[in-house]
């Protein structure tokens, strides 16, 4: 008889060497000197389970969702305010918006543990579940953005009414795009994973502004018109400034709520050095320096800045997913985070005296 599941055999193997053994499973890395919960834990075991997401796959989707949503938004705004003068930019924006419906959706289905049942996402619509909200945002965005891109394709080949259709479809695409670029922050914030849950608003501001910066940077890469590149640079710089401000605010919140140590590992280094430093501060500095010096950045400098913004946007998502997993695995972080002083102001349990009387 064959068992339908893997049967682990008893063998003379030290528990830590065997994957999934009780000793090794769920064990966090040893708490560093920055341990924040000094009270008891249960043998240092994790109290929460980390999300079973593949960080690169889900992080990649979140990045593409932001990039596509922002591209659709910027293309629509450029089309409405500049019309034919921004034609090339609008075209590229509408095509770039197809990244989330195509590659992004594939990444999402790939990350399911039972991918052949992906269609069960369409059974319900739930306001309490950002994943359900996001499913429907992605659906509506896919419909509108695909129609818009197809009409653009037809219009470029001389089909008469297609230009009007593209413009009409670009409005719902832009609206859904705004949701697509930001709902992913709510997706992470509405969990019990401490790092994600600690700063719901600041995380959303970061994701939103970083998405706009990514969209502007991606559209910059193909732009030749001097006036439009300057506008895209200014837009990217403004978004990066918002991103860095939200990053500073979230760092304060992380320290106050006790989840900051989750960012002390390799993922946190990636977040701080690559995503925030090289992906946001460096390009912003470049844009600001060239503006102060009174001349435009060279094509090479501009491309470097744009690529840094794009890479930083992707790394921000991936590193936040990985660092979030660390925060769920470490009981010193999760127990510190789930203390009454971190409850919302209005919660009556916030000021409750110490537990028990013993």
């Amino acid at each position: 008889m064959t068992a339908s599941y893997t049967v682990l055999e008893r063998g003379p193997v030290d528990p830590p060497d065997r994957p999934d053994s009780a000793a090794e499973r769920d064990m966090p890395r040893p708490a560093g000197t920055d341990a924040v919960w000094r009270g008891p834990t249960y043998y240092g075991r994790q109290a929460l389970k980390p999300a079973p997401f593949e960080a690169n796959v889900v992080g990649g989707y979140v990045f593409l969702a932001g990039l596509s949503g922002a591209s659709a938004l910027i293309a629509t705004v450029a089309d409405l305010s500049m019309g034919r003068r921004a034609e090339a930019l609008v075209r590229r924006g509408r095509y770039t918006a197809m990244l989330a419906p195509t590659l992004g959706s594939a990444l999402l289905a790939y990350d399911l543990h039972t991918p052949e049942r992906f269609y069960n996402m369409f059974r319900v619509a739930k306001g309490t579940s950002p994943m359900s909200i996001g499913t429907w945002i992605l659906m509506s965005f896919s419909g509108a953005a695909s129609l818009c891109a197809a009409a653009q394709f037809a219009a470029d080949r001389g089909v008469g009414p297609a230009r009007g259709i593209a413009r009409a479809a670009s409005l719902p695409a832009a609206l859904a795009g705004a949701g697509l670029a930001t709902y992913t922050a709510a997706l992470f914030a509405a969990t019990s994973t401490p790092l994600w849950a600690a700063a719901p608003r600041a995380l959303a501001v970061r994701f939103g502004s970083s998405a706009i910066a990514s969209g502007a940077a991606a559209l910059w890469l193909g732009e030749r018109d001097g006036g439009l590149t300057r506008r895209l640079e200014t837009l990217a710089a403004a978004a990066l400034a918002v991103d860095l401000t939200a990053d500073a605010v979230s760092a304060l919140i992380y320290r106050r709520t006790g989840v900051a140590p989750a960012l002390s590992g390799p993922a946190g280094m990636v977040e701080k050095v690559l995503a925030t430093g090289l992906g946001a501060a460096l390009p912003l500095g470049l844009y600001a320096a060239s503006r102060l010096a009174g001349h435009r950045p060279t094509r090479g400098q501009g491309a470097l800045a744009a690529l840094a913004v794009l890479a930083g946007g992707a790394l921000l998502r991936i590193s936040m997913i990985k660092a979030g997993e660390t925060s769920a695995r470490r009981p010193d972080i999760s127990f510190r985070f789930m203390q009454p002083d971190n409850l919302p102001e209005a919660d009556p349990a916030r000021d409750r005296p110490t537990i028990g009387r013993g």
Partner: protein
Amino acid sequence: MNILHMHPRAAEHHQSNLDRLIPDESELTAGVKIEAGRSYGFFTDTTVCIGCKACEVACKEWNNLPADNLGMTGQSFDNTGALSANTWRHVAFVEKSGAGGIRDGVEQPFQSGWLMMSDVCKHCHHAPCMEACPTGALFKTEFDTVVVQQDICNGCGYCVPACPFGVVEVSKLDGKAHKCTLCYDRLKGGLEPACAKSCPTDSIQFGELSDLQERAARRVEDLHARGVPSAYLYGTPGAPGATGGMSHLNAFFLLTDRPEVYNLPSAPTRPSRRVAPSLFSGLATVAGLTLAAAFLFAESERRP
């Protein structure tokens, strides 16, 4: 109802409802009648737990759950480790005496220095896993318990980080989320859950939630009167574990030490409360930057 050709012996039963001549098993074993539309749950009184793990075994047997591991943890008698996709009851062992290298001079008047607790899915009133589930696979049953429908779940895994107690897990064996069902199949058949039935000390009590909460409050008073001032409830309305909009837990506990000692959080929160703040902050940011973009694109060309 006039029954023709009724056997005369049937009239000797004083119960007029013939359906109820044979009581449900739960009425005999737990003293509770299981009816749809009422709230049921567990009251786990850790002060009488003896750590026999009969609940773990009964759960595995009834639900046909595969073995998780056959290793030793070196952590007291707890070789189970944690709740998982295949382990829906987990007995935690805490050795208080000698912890931290200091042997307590004075021991508690019960259980010496041992703390044992049979952990389980809390079947939260506002279940975060259920609120997070994008497919509707997780649902509230007619008994006010939370169950994953295995034929719906597509293994997105979003319920896993949603749970503030680290209960739900996606199985590597079948790619679906699994957790305690509070023996949904048994409740439907009028049987109390397997773990509660097997518990030899009645540490795990199954019943209607309001009854259990009353019973638990009396037990805490009793323990306080008998010299255990540290006893308190975890997961009843207003108590630790039912904070941050969680209302109450259908499976709640009587504990005698800080929740963290038992690997439970002091003040969990309901994650769905963070959806609106996060969503609207993000949308406001994007709206602001879009407005900035509109101004940028609309401004007339100053220089080439």
